[in-house]
């Protein structure tokens, strides 16, 4: 095993930049930039979470107790933008930065300087976005979907949010280019495309989605900008424009965006479940093809977000059928994970707990997604708390649970120390219980008729809202435990020293490196031994 680790003896002189500024601001090292992305994502997760708690506090009881409706709308809007663009996406890019070079046997990302740039745009983009909270007129309050004409009723915050979105888009596109270039050009000899770990595959496909749709979003918001400030009428019916066109363009970006936030999660779970089942991943190629099918379908289902805008019958039928089709490749993935566990020899360390939690709770989100695809039923569900419950199941217990699973899984490789397993398990169980208390009752609220994005409601909705808020606060506090576990492991270094393999049955190139992984790894390409790949028999 050690023969693959070409940098074993370099631990002590791996040429890290010495100054703090040089190390963290000027870094072109994929590991340091990965860390920056992950830390940034955690900070944004806590900021977005605090906004969610403002929302849940106001909704704790009927009547307005804490905030004005305008500020409430700003909270829902900015919470979504921060969580999507600030927490979930950068976390996956951070994981890609850390893991893809180590998984394909490359010394670094293909374009290290651009890597630095694509990270450092992010703090400025979010400084712009969050500064609107302190402006006269407040932060954007028209929803993260920025539907006109409402979104351009805002004041100068419109320009700020649009420029922030432009910058996030530039950052994402550069990150995606870097990932594609790394995967296509920097694989060690013998690491054929169909031998790559599933995480690398899902990120390759995700990166193409990003390049395809971020410019579309940039175009849509630029038209908003000129409508607002330069007198154009792209989306104003009074000037011959079309407000529904914005929704079509937005969701042409928006639906692939949803998969940008879930495909890497599929990849992570496909790495973790085989490790802790001590059995190769079931149906490796089926997993890759299912991912590609989902990515393709993501481009032809966008209008299912807008069944109530008054589309022609034929359009509604097309988008309903196309959306229902997504259930097939997604089902294949879930069945493959279960089949991987079947007749395995399982243990349930924290990463596995989060991965199993992901499979179950994401599937529940998938079921509500299937229900939402049925147009006549969607006429009832649309824009209610049923939708809120649906997308939080796929994003919180889907994307975010997978990110937490990934952090626990690879943290020993990053830091050379084990995290506190007992606290990790507490974190999982508390998160899983509270997140269901938080989001499950929202299904009932939506079905009973509570619209989303309202600051106040009829007392009939009071009971489940109170339960949901209690779950929300408990989930929020639980995440502080996660922060403590990270500090305990990364900073205080109180955990046991991690071995090279870390997990009993972990396979893949990253586990052939010492723990912590040296600052420069695979400076000469490793030899690829098919038996060392995570997914066993790669011919199927």
């Amino acid at each position: 095993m050690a023969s693959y680790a070409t940098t074993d003896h370099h631990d002590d002189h791996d040429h890290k930049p010495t100054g703090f500024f040089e190390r963290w601001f000027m870094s072109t090292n994929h590991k340091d930039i990965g860390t920056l992305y992950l830390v940034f994502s955690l900070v944004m997760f806590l900021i977005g979470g605090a906004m969610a708690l403002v929302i849940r506090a106001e909704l704790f009881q009927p009547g307005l107790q804490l905030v004005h409706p305008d500020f409430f709308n700003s909270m829902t809007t900015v919470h979504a933008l921060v969580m999507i663009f600030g927490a979930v996406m950068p976390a996956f890019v951070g994981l890609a930065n850390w893991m893809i070079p180590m998984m394909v046997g490359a010394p670094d990302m293909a374009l290290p300087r651009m890597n630095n740039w694509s990270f450092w745009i992010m703090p400025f983009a979010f400084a712009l976005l969050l500064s609107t909270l302190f402006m006269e007129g407040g932060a954007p309050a028209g929803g993260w979907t920025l539907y006109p004409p409402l979104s351009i009723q805002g004041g100068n915050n419109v320009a700020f949010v649009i420029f922030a979105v432009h910058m996030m888009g530039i950052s994402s596109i550069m990150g995606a280019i870097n990932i594609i270039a790394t995967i296509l050009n920097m694989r060690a000899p013998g690491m054929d495309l169909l031998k790559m770990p599933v995480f690398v595959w899902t990120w390759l496909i995700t990166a193409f989605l990003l390049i395809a749709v971020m410019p579309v979003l940039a175009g849509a918001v630029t038209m908003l900008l000129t409508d607002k400030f330069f007198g154009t009428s792209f989306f104003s019916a009074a000037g011959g424009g079309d407000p529904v066109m914005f929704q079509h363009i937005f969701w042409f970006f928006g639906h692939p965006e949803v998969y940008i936030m879930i495909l890497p999660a599929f990849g992570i779970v496909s790495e973790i479940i085989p490790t802790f089942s001590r059995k190769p991943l079931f149906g490796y190629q089926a997993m890759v093809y299912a991912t590609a099918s989902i990515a393709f379908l993501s481009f032809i289902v966008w209008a299912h977000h807008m069944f109530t805008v008054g589309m022609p019958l034929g359009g509604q039928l097309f988008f309903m059928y196309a959306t229902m089709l997504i259930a097939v490749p997604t089902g294949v993935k879930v069945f493959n994970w279960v089949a991987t566990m079947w007749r395995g020899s399982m243990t349930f360390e924290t990463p596995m707990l989060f991965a199993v939690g992901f499979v179950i709770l994401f599937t529940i989100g998938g079921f509500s997604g299937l229900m939402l695809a049925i147009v006549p039923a969607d006429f009832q569900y649309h824009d209610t708390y049923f939708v809120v419950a649906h997308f939080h199941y796929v994003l919180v217990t889907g994307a975010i649970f997978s990110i937490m699973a990934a952090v626990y899984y690879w943290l020993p490789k990053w830091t050379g120390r084990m995290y506190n397993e007992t606290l990790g398990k507490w974190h999982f169980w508390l998160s899983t219980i509270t997140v269901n208390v938080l989001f499950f009752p929202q299904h009932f609220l939506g079905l009973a008729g509570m619209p989303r994005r309202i600051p106040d409601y009829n007392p009939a909705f009071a009971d489940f809202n109170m339960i949901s808020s209690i779950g929300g606060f408990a989930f929020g506090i639980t995440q502080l435990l996660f922060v403590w576990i990270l500090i305990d492991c990364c900073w205080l270094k109180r955990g046991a020293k991690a071995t090279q393999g870390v997990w009993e049955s972990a396979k893949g190139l990253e586990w052939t490196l010492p723990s912590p992984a040296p600052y420069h790894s695979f400076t000469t390409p490793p030899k690829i031994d098919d038996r060392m790949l995570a997914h066993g028999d790669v011919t199927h």
Partner: protein
Amino acid sequence: MTKAKFALGLALAALSTAAMAAPERWQLNMTPGVTATSQDVFQLHMLILWICVVIGIVVFGAMFYAMFKFRKSKGAVAATWSHNTTAEIIWTVIPVLILLGMAWPATKTLVRMADTGDAAMTVKITGYQWKWRYEYLGEDVKFMSSLSRAADEARQLGSGIDPSTVDNYLLDVDRPLVIPTNTKVRFVITADDVIHAWWVPALGWKQDAIPGFINEAWTEVKEPGVYRGQCAELCGKDHGFMPIVVIAKPKAEFDAWLAEQKAANAPATDAVAQAPSAP
């Protein structure tokens, strides 16, 4: 006159609780509603829900069985296989068949809902920030409908009024929309400023109200009653405060109500109508 109307409203409100025209505490599920369409939608919803529950039981059942049976601590030894073509074909084909089974009733219902033809009357609905306007096309009856005074006072930040003391808090309006029962009523829906969405759950659908566009929808309410809903598309500060109330009355009572509205409008309308019509 207003007292009589108020009394009638109360009587209808009492009657309508049977049909669950407004949300109830601890309500878990969608209501079947009061039209043939809403009942079809409800059936469809229940069908998919139960299919999902069954699939969930099978998949999660297999998963939990595996997690309890194939544990290292129980001495399980991992198998080494990683594919099984038969199983993969089965779990691709069966979902396709299930989806076809869902798509068929969904398509039938959708086609029925899309047919706005043969309506006996048409009401134009216009969304404003933050109220609704109803116009009975061809009848010269039109009015604004906004949040009831009592709820508007109670909903102010720090009003000190307990919302549970206000009847139908945030689900009551000053002037409800009145429609006849057992009559196909067509709605044309638009907005004047930003996008809104008109939604009464008991009718089984919602439809966006978009400035510059006219959307169509229809309903045929079977039971007299008071049905409540809300704007369902974020439309700004008071999005949560523009409810919808529909009163469905038997045809004869509706005709009487409409005549009464016309009579109330008559003097004013005549004066306006005569001016432009004089050549």
